Every structure is written in structure tokens, then in C-alpha cells.
């Protein structure tokens, strides 16, 4: 895993130097709305999110000529990034860790500004945190060229929460307790055996 991680780091470094796309260079040309209400709590693995995106018509026609695909992600709100350096917002998009969970991946972009919608269930590996939703428009090389998000530029409004699964199961709990009890009982068994052996050697 160390070698794997090292190679990933190397390739990221290479990618970063090659691409260098930054968030601040993106135009906010998409309008994105999503079903979760502000401060609503969704359950991972159970509740659904419906995302709707379209081109902001105030922009001149043709601004979306390079948009080929759309990727929509769940992004951490600042409160969930606090004290957690692994979720840090960085301008370089390759290194940026704000949006780590995909809702829609590389859906073809339809230029006619009809409402594009997608509904999916929140995946079970999404952690408990406060989120907003961001859509990236990508060009034919897969680089981000524009974005839209459900919150404002300070990421302070229209945030919702997701409650993750605990990952625990009753069977796991029972197994843990049983094995622990078995270990302790074995220990007492050892002491008993040891006493018996030493009594035997005494009577020899």
C-alpha cells in the first residue's frame, strides 16, 4: 500500500504540473438545484437526492460550446472541513479535496437549456457531515471548465446534512463480545492448568 500510495502521489504530482486547472479560473455558468432542504438530514443508503442542472441563460450563447460532460459531486461545507486537513479546499483542482463523493459521473452535456435531472440514493460510504452540491462541466479532455453549486460563494447557505451508516451490525457486535469473553475464559483456563501442573510436580 505504501508503494501504491507513493505511485499515486507521483502521478498526482505529474498531473498537477501538466494540468494546473484552478477553481478560481472556472466560470459559474451552471444553475444547480437539489432536493435536500436547508438543514435537512438525509440518511446514507436510504434517502434520495434529486439534482437538476441547466445553463444560466444570462451568459452569452456559445459559452457552453466546450462542455461535453457533467459531473456532480457532494461537497463538504466549511464546518465539516474544520480540523480535518484531508478535506481541505485548495485552488488547484487536482489537489482539491472539497468534493470527494460523486452523485453523477460524466453524464453527457445536453446544450439545449432544458432541465437535466438525476435522482440517486445516497451511497452507504458517505460519512456524516454537512454538504452542498456542485456540478462541474468538463470538456472533451475531462478537464473542468465551468461549475455551478447549490450554495453561495461563501458556502454558507442552503447546506444539508447526511447521516452515515454506522457500519456496525448486531452479528459483529455479538462476535466481538463472544471472542473477547473466550479470550478471558481461556486465560482462567491457563491459570487453572498451571496450578494443576505445579501441584502435580510437587507431589512427584
Amino acid at each position, binding site marked *: 500500500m505504501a508503494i501504491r500510495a507513493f505511485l499515486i502521489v507521483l502521478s498526482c504530482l505529474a498531473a498537477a504540473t501538466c494540468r494546473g486547472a484552478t477553481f478560481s479560473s472556472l466560470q459559474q455558468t451552471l444553475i444547480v438545484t437539489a432536493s435536500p432542504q436547508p438543514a435537512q438530514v438525509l440518511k446514507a443508503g436510504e434517502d434520495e437526492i434529486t439534482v437538476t442542472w441547466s445553463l444560466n441563460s444570462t451568459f452569452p450563447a456559445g459559452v457552453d460550446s466546450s462542455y461535453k460532460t457533467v459531473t456532480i459531486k457532494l461537497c463538504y461545507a466549511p464546518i465539516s472541513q474544520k480540523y480535518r486537513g484531508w478535506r481541505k479546499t485548495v485552488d488547484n483542482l487536482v489537489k482539491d479535496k472539497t468534493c470527494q463523493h460523486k452523485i453523477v459521473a460524466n453524464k453527457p452535456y445536453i446544450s439545449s437549456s432544458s432541465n437535466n435531472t438525476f435522482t440517486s440514493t445516497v451511497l452507504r460510504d458517505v460519512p456524516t457531515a454537512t454538504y452542498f452540491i456542485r456540478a462541474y462541466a468538463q470538456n472533451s479532455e475531462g478537464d473542468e471548465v465551468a461549475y455551478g453549486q447549490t450554495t453561495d460563494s461563501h458556502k454558507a447557505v442552503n447546506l444539508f446534512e447526511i447521516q452515515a451508516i454506522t457500519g456496525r451490525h448486531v452479528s459483529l457486535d455479538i462476535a466481538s463480545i463472544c*471472542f473477547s469473553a473466550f479470550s478471558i475464559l481461556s*486465560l482462567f483456563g491457563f491459570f487453572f492448568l498451571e496450578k494443576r501442573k505445579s501441584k502435580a510436580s510437587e507431589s512427584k
Partner: protein
Amino acid sequence: MEISHGSYNQKKFALPVDSEHKATEFRLFSAAAPHMRAFHLSWISFFACFVSTFAAPPLLPIIRDNLDLTATDIGNAGIAAVSGAVFARIAMGTACDLFGPRLASATLTLLTAPAVYCTSIADSPISFLLVRFFTGFSLATFVSTQFWMSSLFSGRVVGTANGVAGGWGNLGGGATQLIMPLVFDLIQNIGATKFTAWRIAFFIPALFQTLSAYGIFFLGQDLPDGNYSELHKSGEKHKDNFAQVFHHAVTNYRGWILALTYGYCFGVELTIDNIIAQYFYDRFNPGGGMLSDFMAKRFGMRGRLWTLWVVQTLGGVFCIILGQVGSLGVSVAVMLVFSVFVQAACGLTFGVVPFVSRRSLGIISGMTGGGGNVGAVLTQVIFFRGSRYSTETGLTLMGVMMICCTLLITLIYFPQWGGMFCGPSSKGKTTEEDYYMSEWSSSEREKGFHRASLKFSENSRSERGRKIGSAATPIDGTPNTYV
């Protein structure tokens, strides 16, 4: 006093032994009872404990999302994992002195296994910290490993035995970085979600630990002649008194010095492991222990002390350099060199520890081992927590502290062998017997409790080195059988 000849004992043991029946050779590829079998059992169980203690870090990216941990929670859990062992190591030393390493280590390993099983049901930062804290207690098996090797191997090879057992056990900390992600991937592929798969993965180190405890109990033996409980009952071994053992340990200043200096080799090693995510797979370099034995052959205990001081000081020098160096390539190279010296210093320390006390070997080993963990906690808290010092400054300061603390080794003095700057004492009671007998009162000697220490004294004469110094030979002049 009987003169031991190898052939006399050859019939009973697979390896050549001395008068205490300790092996005088270290044969790595043998599993013969009791010496080499105990070696393999102890390094394997120590390895298992290291795997369990450091099983969480490689899975942290998943655990921190599942339990909603902050960076502080993670840091605190990491410190908790190594701080638990501070007192556990001292307690373990005591237990070894009183009950023998076999029962002591099997007990601790089995008592900490539930903490590993219960990692699967952790659901908050506090429960995560608690399971890491209690799992960390299992690192005290280091002490039982060292004690056991010191009980079964003679002075000629004790450094090697201690170094290899400690080193291979330490490998567990590196191996777990490969093992846990592999196990986790496997379980995920079978169909569990991320947040469940990591929980199931922890059963593997827990089961490994439990099995190793069984192995030690059923296959191990405390001493070449039998287990403590049998020897206590048969009267061959005196069942010692805790207060006496404790007293002789804490009043021996050498134990305290070694505890502090060990804090600045092993403690530094643990700290580096936590703050720099790189994994050296040859941690507690067996080279240190072998070097100690090699130096002891020619120069005796003084050679061991000088080598320890030089190697650990050089480790400090390279640590300072590491903090100053700017480029990545050079700093990796410096870190490798630094790591070799630090690890060798750990091995060299445990070449000296078996000779500090015979009666309280366990507690002295425990204090030294515990000192390592204290060093790790102190160093991380002072230099690597919060933002007072940049990491580079922290490293430089840690190097300076290493050099300063290591100077204490110059104060260690054995009347029968000397210290770094002084030769053995030429006046009065200055034989090995005098040193080790001073731990027993005359009434205890009348009852014959001191017999094991007497045999040890005889065998430790090899610590005089090749040049036999001005120390007086005992009246019933037993010739030195070692060259």
C-alpha cells in the same frame, strides 16, 4: 562451584549451554526446545502485538470518516496507543520477575485481545481512543521478550537474541501497513461496505494475537530447567518477594539512566513513525545487538557502553542534520542513515540491560522499555503537537535532546567492569559476585535464594573483555572458561 563443560550438558539440550543451562549459541533456524522454541514464540507474539497496536493507522482514511474524527482525535489516539505501554512495561517487568515470562506474556496478550476485538464496535472518537489505548498495553510484551531471551541465552549471545527478537517483533508495525489494507480490500471484495469491512478486518490481528498466546502457554518454557511454577514448588527456584525486587530495581541508578536514554532512541523511533509516513521494514535493527556482543567479546561491558554512546549520539547528530536538510532526496538518505543508528542504539541498549540487575531483571527491562514509550509521548507532546515548532525545527531540537540525554551513559559505572571513562574498581568488593550478591541480604543468602544470581555472576565474567583488568578474581579461583 562446578565448572561447566559443554559435553556434560549436551545430552539434555540441543544447543551448547553454560552452567545456568543458558544457550551459548544462537541458531536462528532451529526451533529446538526450550531455547530457540522460546525465541520463535516470543518474537511471533511480540510481532502480533505490534500488528494489533498499529493496525488502525493504515485504515484511518476510512475510520476517520466512519467515526467523524478530527485531526486532534487522531493525534490523541496515536499518543494513547503508545502511552498505555509506559506503565504496562514496568508492570510486565515485575510480573516476569515474579511469575516468569511465559505466564506474564500469555496473560497480557490474552487480556489485550478483547481490546482489539472491540475495535470492531467502536463508534465515537472516545471509544476509538480507548481501544487504541488498551490495545497499546500489548506492547509491553517487549519486556517479556527481552526478559525471556535474557533468561535463556548467555552473555555471549544475549545481545543478538534480544536484538533479533525485538527487531523481528517490531517488523509487525511495518507489516501491518501492508496486511490491514490487503485484508480490508479482500473483505470489501467479498461484499461488505467500507464502514463494515474495516471492522471485520480487525478480527484478523485479534485472532493472531489470541493464537500466539496459546502457543506461548502450551509450547513455551520460562527457564532451561522448567517453568517458574514447577521450579517454585520443587524449591529449585526461590519465589521472590515483590517489595524486594521492586526495591532493588528502583535503587539501581543505572536502570534509570538506561530508561531515559532508551526514551531517546526507541522513543524517537516511535515519534518518527508517527510524524513521517514512511516505513522502514528493518526497525529494531538486530545489528545493534550483534554489535554489542561483538564489542563485548573484545572490550567487555566498557565496549558495550562506549558503542551505545557513540551510536546513539551519532543518531542525534543525523537527526539534527535531518531537520536542516532542504531537498527531498538528501533528506530521505539522511533519514535512512539516522534510522540505522537509532535502531542500532536500541539493540545496544538491550545488550547492557541484562547485566544491570539479576534479581530485578524484569523490572529493569520494564523500566527501560517503558522509558522508550515515555520518550515517544514527551517528544511528540513537546515538539510535534500544535503549531509552536515547524516539523524541521522539531526534528533539530529532538536531535539536540537525544545528544544531551545520551551523555548520561557516561555516568554508568559497574565496579567489576568499569564505566566509559573509569576502569574497574581496584579496592574492596569488586567482583561480579559482589555486585550481584549485594542484591540479596545475608538472611536470604542463608536460605540459598541467591543461587541463580551466583551462577549468573560466574557466567558474566565474559563482560571483562579479553584484557582481564585489575578486578580481583574470587578466592575459589574458577578460571575464566571464555576466550
